[in-house]
């Protein structure tokens, strides 16, 4: 431990820490420009100077780079320090008068430019790669590129007043990996990494915002994610691509970042499974007439939802993807792929939620664009639900949304507008709307891969891939496999209230199953007649549950009399495959015994009472003619 005195206060720091770290511990404010904790210190800008007044060689030293030593006495705001900082800032300001970070500090220290900028400081850089005139030549970008990321794509170039940040030989860099660390770390916002890079910089589109903005490789997937923690996208992370960078690990104050962590398979024994795999949207580009994917202003409802979200790519401002202007006319098209079997990929079912969210979107639209007009093409307004119809009425009456009953035949561009041609079946006419944005409400589909999951869990699903409940009325959240329950759109399209209700029901059912110390089960399982079983064990391989094993029968002296099949009551599910396989008919499934089933078969004849003789009915002699 090192003990020193700063501004009259005693402080202890670790070996290797700097005066700046000591000041931070004491809460003393020291201005810095060229310092960043991810990069080794350089003491380049010299606004962090402090004065050593005792315990060492007296003088002004940069706090960010000067190692703490025992017994030093430091003054961080002496007159000499303030004068030095003022002079440094004045000189920097003369070079880069429009740098905001400098202006703020200069105001604090009363610094004025010592001479007027007589020429454009970066005139020589015109034409080659360079940075804006805000640059104060602190060199952070050069150091981060060389020492942290690794490729050394940037460097200092020129001398004297011509000194600037550039790339070697002022050529666009082919070693630049476009990571953007230089722009991130620049204290003055002077750098655009695209200026350095010889190849287009890959932007990682933000999946959560439907690709309308970009994200970093380490990111929190979306607000309110559970767990609300960042994850590293290894395909794009520079550390995983090149082995360099590691800035996030350096910077994380909690030391939470571990590049060595790998995905692992965790096996848990559970008593119940709730399947809530949700939904995905139909890709509306299968309907070429709507132009989704060709015209940027044709968006899906989910994309619209992100656009108007306060946490979305535009922070809630609705703008046309084509030109960034708010759309003055918007057309919502419902039932894109729902209730539709004519086209391949169309679905016969109603997706249920689109009517209500389109009404909501019309309200949101009017909140964002007050003088805008919303048109909604619908097949039927399905607003069954508590207060739902009132909500739709409110959209029509208060928000003046125009509901048009009919379908749209074509969307095509004219000028910077999209012409929506459709039918209004209530007035019996064709309508043509010059829209600035078109929002499609695609059909809901079950999540991809749900069929594989269903087969693993041995639960049923319908032809669309929605999971089947055990009984539509009596067992709406159970499946045919005991202990597996359903919730949400994995089961069928449903809105949030329905999903919450179903999920609560599934949770209750699961708890009801696992909170008991004993499990009750169906008694319809196989039993072996030990008297007739000859121990051939043909039944063993057909049992899917491994429930059949040998049992030895011994007399009182312990002599082995026979080895017969035995069915474990806990494992047997009662399918009866063994009963059919058994050649001596020694296995019976309780509830579905042979004699019970034969009794049912015997009762099938249209006039066949269960007596010893058959009636002289139609069987055999053709008397039915």
């Amino acid at each position, binding site marked *: 431990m090192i003990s020193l005195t700063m501004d009259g206060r005693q402080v202890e720091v670790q070996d290797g820490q700097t005066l700046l770290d000591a000041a931070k511990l004491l809460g003393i404010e020291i201005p810095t420009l060229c310092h960043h904790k991810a990069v080794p210190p350089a003491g380049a800008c010299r606004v962090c100077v402090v004065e050593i007044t005792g315990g060492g060689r007296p003088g002004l030293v940069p706090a960010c780079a000067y190692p703490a030593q025992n017994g030093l006495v430091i003054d961080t705001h002496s007159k000499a320090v303030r004068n030095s900082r003022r002079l440094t800032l004045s000189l920097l300001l003369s070079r880069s008068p429009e740098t905001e970070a400098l202006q703020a500090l200069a105001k604090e220290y009363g610094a004025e430019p010592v001479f007027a900028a007589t020429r454009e400081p970066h005139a020589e850089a015109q034409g080659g790669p360079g940075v804006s005139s805000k640059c104060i030549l602190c060199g952070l970008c050069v150091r981060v590129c060389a020492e942290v990321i690794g490729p050394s794509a940037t460097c200092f170039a020129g001398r004297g007043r011509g000194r600037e940040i550039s790339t070697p030989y002022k050529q666009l860099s082919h070693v630049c990996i476009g990571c953007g660390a230089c722009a991130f770390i620049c204290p003055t916002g002077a750098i655009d990494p695209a200026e350095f890079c010889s190849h287009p910089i890959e932007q990682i589109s933000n999946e959560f915002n439907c690709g309308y903005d970009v994200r970093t490789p380490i990111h929190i997937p979306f607000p309110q994610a559970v767990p609300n923690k960042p994850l590293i996208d290894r395909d794009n992370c520079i550390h995983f691509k090149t082995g360099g960078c590691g800035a996030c690990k350096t910077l994380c104050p909690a030391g939470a970042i571990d590049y060595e962590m790998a995905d692992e398979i965790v096996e848990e024994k559970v008593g119940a499974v709730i399947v809530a795999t949700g939904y995905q949207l139909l890709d509306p580009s299968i309907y070429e007439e709507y132009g989704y994917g060709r015209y940027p202003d044709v968006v899906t409802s989910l994309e619209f939802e992100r656009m108007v979200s306060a946490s979305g790519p535009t922070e809630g401002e609705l703008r046309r993807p084509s030109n960034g202007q708010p759309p003055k006319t918007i057309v919502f098209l419902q039932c894109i792929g729902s209730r539709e079997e004519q086209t391949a990929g169309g679905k016969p079912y109603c997706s249920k939620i689109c009517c209500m969210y389109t009404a909501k979107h019309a309200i949101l639209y009017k909140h964002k664009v007050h003088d805008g007009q919303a048109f909604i093409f619908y097949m039927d307004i399905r607003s069954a639900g508590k207060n739902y119809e009132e909500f739709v009425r409110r959209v029509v009456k208060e928000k003046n949304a125009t509901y048009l009953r009919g379908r749209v035949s074509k969307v095509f561009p004219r000028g910077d507008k999209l012409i929506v041609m459709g039918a209004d079946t209530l007035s019996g006419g064709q309508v043509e709307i010059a829209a600035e944005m078109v929002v499609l409400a695609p059909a809901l589909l079950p999540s991809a891969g749900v069929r594989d999951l269903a087969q693993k869990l041995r639960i049923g699903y319908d*032809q669309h891939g929605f999971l089947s409940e055990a009984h539509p009325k009596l067992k709406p959240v159970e499946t045919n496999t005991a202990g597996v329950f359903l919730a949400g759109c994995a089961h069928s399209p449903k809105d949030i209230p329905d999903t919450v209700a179903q999920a609560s029901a599934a949770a209750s059912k699961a708890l009801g199953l696992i909170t008991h110390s004993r499990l009750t089960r169906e008694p319809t399982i196989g039993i072996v007649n030990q008297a007739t079983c000859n121990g051939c064990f043909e039944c063993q391989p057909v049992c899917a549950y491994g429930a059949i094993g040998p049992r030895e029968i011994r007399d009182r002296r312990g002599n082995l009399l026979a080895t017969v099949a035995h069915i474990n009551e806990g494992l047997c599910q009662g399918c*009866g495959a063994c*009963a059919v396989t058994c050649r001596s008919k020694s296995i019976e499934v309780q509830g579905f015994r042979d004699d019970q089933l034969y009794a*049912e078969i*015997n009762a099938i*004849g249209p006039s066949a009472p269960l*007596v010893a*003789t058959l009636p002289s009915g139609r*069987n*055999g002699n053709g008397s039915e003619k």
Partner: protein
Amino acid sequence: MSHTATEHDATTAAATEWKPNIVAFLCNWCSYAGADLAGMSRFGYPAAIRIIRVPCSGRVDPMFILKSFERGADMVLVSGCHPGDCHYTSGNFHARRKLQAFRELMGFLGIDPRRFKMSWVSAAEGGKWSALVNEITEEARSLGPFTGYPSCENGNGRTTGEQGD
């Protein structure tokens, strides 16, 4: 058609009068639930079919089918979960293989193999169930009554005596 008009009328009249007797063994989890769904969805289908519920199509013993023909069935249907979707993992595979072998032997037993049907109907396929029953009823009607086992009518009652008591 080589029928004369009168014969044709008579045949039609007989056909409308005579209803085939179809025995269906349905697995509890898929086809039985599918038939239940058909009812709940108000799909119509002929009443000629008699459903016997079994836990799994793998529970269907070939003897059940023979017994059904003996007891006056004109057609027998075994229906289970779609292959790969068996509630018991593999029961329908056992059924498929076993009953296919059984079908091969039906001619030897004096039963037209067309009188034995297998199908896969899931719990969500009420419409498919209804269509299937319509289709096989029509086929059973065209095949006419099964008369291959007149012996059971003679009252020797081998099985009837055993099972009916």
